């Protein structure tokens, strides 16, 4: 009788959790982790930055703004998001902060720990850098440090370039206020990137790639990235960019090994 009750309970739980319930990342010890170093190059001429005449709130946002969708210097790409897929157990998420391009000084702050802990600090009509990362089913704190309202509109896409985008949230971000929003897994199903825009200020556009572990990096101004303390094993290493798309390669991490990799995007 007890067994029947147990089976009914298990069946009910499986129905509640649904077939899509995925295995969550667990923090554990990595004693002999390896690392990956690499550079992302860009072969070609980056497109000219987009220029916007600011129509709403120029007193805060400035009279004109620009948006550089492909930022490359000396043939190396800045802002490419590098993600290692398929790791279920490993180090905690590291705290990190990335600041947006001037004149805006918005920030993507990752608090770290057992989860990513993303905070988006909007300042000077800037959400943060053009690219970043986000985790499904986690609360994201959106802070508005400006004295004006922004309207945060977020979308998810199954395609790294965001060819087809679906609304997740469309919400007012009141002056000097904050909201907390979860990007639920049912809306994020198969989603690889979240785009956030402000409905009031069209130059505010950012792309956050979905991660489920702390093994990610964002290429710096010289195109360099580093991921370390990786548990030994074979994984897929992805590099993603909202304009240039995605590249991937299989990598094998050896205990205490240091793997050098390179990616090259070509101007189409």
């Amino acid at each position: 009788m007890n067994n029947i009750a147990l089976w009914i309970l298990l069946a009910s739980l499986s129905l509640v959790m649904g077939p899509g319930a995925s295995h969550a990342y667990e923090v554990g010890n990595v004693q002999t982790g390896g690392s990956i170093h690499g550079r992302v190059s860009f072969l070609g001429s980056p497109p000219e930055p987009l220029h916007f005449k600011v129509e709403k709130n120029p007193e805060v946002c400035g009279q004109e703004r620009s948006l550089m969708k492909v930022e490359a210097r000396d043939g190396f790409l800045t802002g490419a998001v590098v993600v290692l897929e398929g790791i279920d157990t490993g180090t905690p998420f590291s705290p990190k902060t990335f600041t947006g391009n001037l004149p805006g000084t918005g920030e993507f702050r990752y608090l770290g720990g057992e989860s990513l802990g993303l905070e988006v600090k909007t300042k000077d009509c800037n959400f943060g850098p053009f690219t970043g990362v986000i985790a499904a089913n986690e609360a994201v704190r959106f802070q508005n440090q400006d004295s004006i309202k922004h309207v945060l509109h977020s979308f998810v896409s199954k395609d790294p370039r965001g060819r087809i985008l679906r609304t997740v949230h469309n919400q007012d971000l009141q002056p000097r206020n904050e909201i907390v929003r979860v990007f639920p897994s049912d809306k994020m199903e198969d989603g690889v990137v979240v785009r956030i825009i402000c409905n009031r200020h069209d130059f505010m556009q950012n792309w956050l790639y979905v991660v489920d572990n702390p093994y990610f990096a964002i290429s710096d101004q010289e195109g360099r990235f580093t991921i370390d303390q990786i548990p030994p094993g074979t994984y897929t290493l992805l590099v993603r960019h909202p304009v240039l798309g995605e590249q991937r390669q299989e990598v094998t991490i050896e205990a205490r090994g240091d793997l050098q990799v390179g990616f090259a995007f070509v101007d189409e």
Partner: protein
Amino acid sequence: MTRSIRYLCFGFIVGSLGIVYALPPAEGALLDGLMEGVEESLGKKAEEKGERLVIGNLYQAERPDSHAPIGVMQDHTHNKGEFMFTYRYMYMYMDKMRNGTDNLSSNDVLKDFAVTPKNMTTQMHMFSAMYGLNDTVTLMAMLPYVMKEMEHQNRAGVNFTTNSSGFGDTKLAALWRLYAFETPSIGSHRFHLNTGLSLPTGDITPTDNTPLGNNSLLPYPMRLGSGTVDLLPGLTYTGVRNDVSWGFQALGTVRIGHNKQGYKEGNRYQVNSWGAYRWADWISTSARLNWQQWYNIKREDGQLQTTVGPAQIPLVPTADTDRQGGQRLDLMGGVNILFPEFMGLENHLNVEAGAPIYQYLDGPQLKQAWSFWVGWQMVM
């Protein structure tokens, strides 16, 4: 025919509720996930133009034309957690009598009736609220305060006026987002389903003093509600591209049962189509065509006096259940003004006025001369 339409509308509402309950609990438009073929095709075309296809809730309060002309209700859905309060004022003036498309003089009407209406004003103060329950459903409630005044003339040449006023019928509605998509080159396109109920809170036994006596029961056009629970099914489509916006809405009012006075008002159907142009961030102008068709009353109010004298002369056309139906096409012009962040909220001041360009009445009936709307909307 009417019964079939009623069943159809009832089925439409029950069916839509069934669809909603059958769908997974994820919040989103009802047809999300069912249009992947269309999305792929649109997404491919957008990509060829260097654009992206956006699927989802596209409501933006930041345009003056983000709302339809003020005479249109339930025209947009809201984002989750968003409130909108609206105050609308409507003034409608009806003047002179008509039968079919023929104008009649008072003397023409008085050949067959003891009394003829000469003109009528209807004023409504409408208080409504919309709330984005989630990304699928927007709720709406509206309570009107109605004031009616009708001027009459009898065969003796005596003029008299009757008045009625009070709260009208309460409307409750749920707007279900069906689908929305957008690309820069084709603009944004949104569809939603309107379902609702009208609750009989309006007085259907108003009285006033007339030459027939004090506290006489007033005829049908002077009543403040239908007295029945009415279904309010509908479908709405709106679009925006650059500075132009447009919309189409079909709405029905389908009466259920008979009221306590023993009659049932005729069903009413209307189709709105409008276009607007945004001249600046804060102002847009609009033109709207509104087609309405409404039917005669079924059965009758047994307490309402319909004849007078031993010869049983018909008293007044407004007391005749077979002289209530009609069709009308109105042309309306409007202005929407946006006051962004006024008192910290998006505020819209909208004005609209117009007149019929066609009306066919099962008369003699008063014909509509013109109407005027003004409204203030606050989105928070």
